[in-house]
């Protein structure tokens, strides 16, 4: 990807009026602020610890940022607060309680207090029995979707939060806001990483 070229092309074609939003943000440096603490909008402190622990287990920090580094847990809380309707929120709370209950009955501790092996064991068991998402055509699932369960739906939500974050979307994935052309057959080796958009 060549960001400079993309900016140049776009500016030439559209004039100053389109140099807003994302393009403006390209021009700024993207600093990742360490998160010290946060105040959830929807979750209780205990529930926030559960969600944060799930994010950290599923998307840990490696050579690339972890889910907590890009505030996936905070994004999820925002989604619960602003995107879920009352019914969805109620079901979510019941699911979180139910999941922690499973952890307690097995290991006598809530999820966020479990060690890595225990977390792995319980998540694996949950995933093994969980239906998958149906295929999508133009953004809409095809056929009748079976409920995928708490863990897979949280996984889906945290992947969305992670890969749609600025840090990951621009620096980790292959970011090309104005491709200019469509090339149908390009060796993966030349592209390198998955496209961001």
């Amino acid at each position, binding site marked *: 990807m060549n960001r400079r070229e993309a900016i140049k092309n776009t500016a030439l*074609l559209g004039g100053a009026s389109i140099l807003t939003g994302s393009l403006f943000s390209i021009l700024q440096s993207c600093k990742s602020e360490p998160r010290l603490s946060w105040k959830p909008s929807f979750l209780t402190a205990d529930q926030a610890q559960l969600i944060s622990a799930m994010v950290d287990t599923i998307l840990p920090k490696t050579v690339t940022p972890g889910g907590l580094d890009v505030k996936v847990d905070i994004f999820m809380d925002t989604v619960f607060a602003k995107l879920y309707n009352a019914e969805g929120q109620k079901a979510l709370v019941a699911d979180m309680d139910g999941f922690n209950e499973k952890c307690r009955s097995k290991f006598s501790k809530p999820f966020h207090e479990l060690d890595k092996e225990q977390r792995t064991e319980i998540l694996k068991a949950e995933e093994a029995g969980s239906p998958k998402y149906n295929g999508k*055509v133009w953004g809409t699932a095809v*056929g009748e979707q079976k409920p995928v369960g708490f863990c897979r739906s949280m996984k889906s939500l945290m992947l969305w939060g*992670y890969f749609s974050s600025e840090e990951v979307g621009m620096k980790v994935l292959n970011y*090309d806001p*104005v491709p200019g052309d469509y090339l149908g057959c*390009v060796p993966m080796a030349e592209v390198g990483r998955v*496209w961001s958009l």
Partner: protein
Amino acid sequence: MPNFNIDAKKDMTYDAIVIGSGMSGGWAAKELCEAGLKTLVLERGRMVEHIKDYPTANNESWDLELRGAIGPEDQKKHYKAGRAGFIGENNKHFYANDQEAPYTEVKPFLWVRAHQMGGRSLIWGKQTYRWSELDFEANAKDGHGIDWPIRYKDLAPWYTHVEKYAGISGEALGLPQLPDSHFLPPMELNCVEKEVKQRLEKEFPDRNLIIGRVAHLTVEHNGRGKCQFRNRCDRGCPFGAYFSSNAVTLPAANATGNLTMRPFSIVDSIVYDEKTGRASGVKVIDSETGEMQEYLAKIIFCNASTLSTTRILLNSTSSRFPNGLGNDSGELGHNLMDHTYRVGAIGNYDGFEDMYYKGRRPNGIYIPRYWNIDAKTKSDKFVRGFGFQGGAYRPGWGAGANMDGFGEEFKDNLITNPGPWEFFITGFAECLPYHENKVSLDKQNLDKWGQPTLAIDAEWKANELALNKQIQEDALEMLEKCGLKNIVGFDNKHEMGYGIHEMGTARMGRDPKTSVLNATNQVHACKNVFVSDGACMTSNSCVNPSLTYMALTARAASHAISELKKGNL
């Protein structure tokens, strides 16, 4: 851009009035203005100027709190159209407010509307296909509906006329059931699409897999930029690379100096003059002030979109036309059609793991109709046919939710591995014109401006269901024979309207006793009123309709201009 006529009092008389500024209204405005007619375009929604009013065109997901999703308030506002699954934070301003303008579903029907300058031309799918002789002859040959008063040869030069100006990309193939357009260079198929094409055309010699024919510029054209492959079309294109009224026809109309655009103008009715036997003008409600005004013109083009056009005609009553303007036949409001939608199959392709693509192509593949083309392909289960849209892609991180596992390896794999290739096809089947599939004025339920709303009463019948069954069987068979794995068939059982190709309700015909419009889109008994949007359609083919509306409109406008010159209107 142009001459806003907000202070409406000073200028009430025009040569022509065009009701609606979308796909067909924009063409009417362009052709009439270019012929020197002072033309007033009435649009019920707000002004949308090209580029200036595309506020979300460069948003990234991380610029938005909910990363592109809409919250409960917006979901309520779009409680009908939201069912289509296309409305998000970046395009919500281009969809009508369903709460302000409700409609009644006597039977389930999805009506997706766009109330702003440019209408649905800002958010359409851009697939553009010519109809064939097969389509225009269909009603006459199998006896469903009434005969079209025109044939392919009547429309062919007008297809060329609009294509040359709009810019259509595609590949010429010489297929009789899908005539070639005047093409700009085609977009490219990706590796898996090329492979599936080869296998499909070998296994099924009478079928073709082609790149979609689309109203996107693949080269610069008439001062508009070429497609940048961002696939953010429904936010408005800052490059002007896809066809919309806002980017193409309205600026052309405006350049003549003959155009006046009046946004916030809801048409109440067309006024019929008993003395002259012609329409004299249009009654308009200012949607901001509620004030009613009357504009006068020699000719009126009604291009408000299929159902809105018919609502206006039904609401235009007089002693000559007690049941709606031009409704001598009793067919006004009847014969509503749409295409069936989201029946098909999806599967994985094993291979090409080392290959990917660059760019986000706003287009897919097309498999043209192959049933009931000739004696050899005749079905004994249904009449007419269907085509498929589809495509191959790698899901990227979107595959992650279905992958088992988590942790370091899981996460880093999603960054470097775009996931298995997926390929899907989904059918669009022709719908027969049934008198019983209808809309009527609902005077009990009024909208925010006190206007009668529409009650929509339509459903698929046996022929459409038989076509859908065949779509499903064929989709599964084709994917299997093309070597796809993990194939899943689907039929979302969508009601009418999901195709967003509503057509009919003021059909063209040869006989005023059975139709509303004549061969040049004039109301039979009120010749200075033209209808050339989807309402005029006598049958609905299986291909996407917008190109045909454009061509019919340019042809009707040419006729109107010539009749005016002759003093016949």
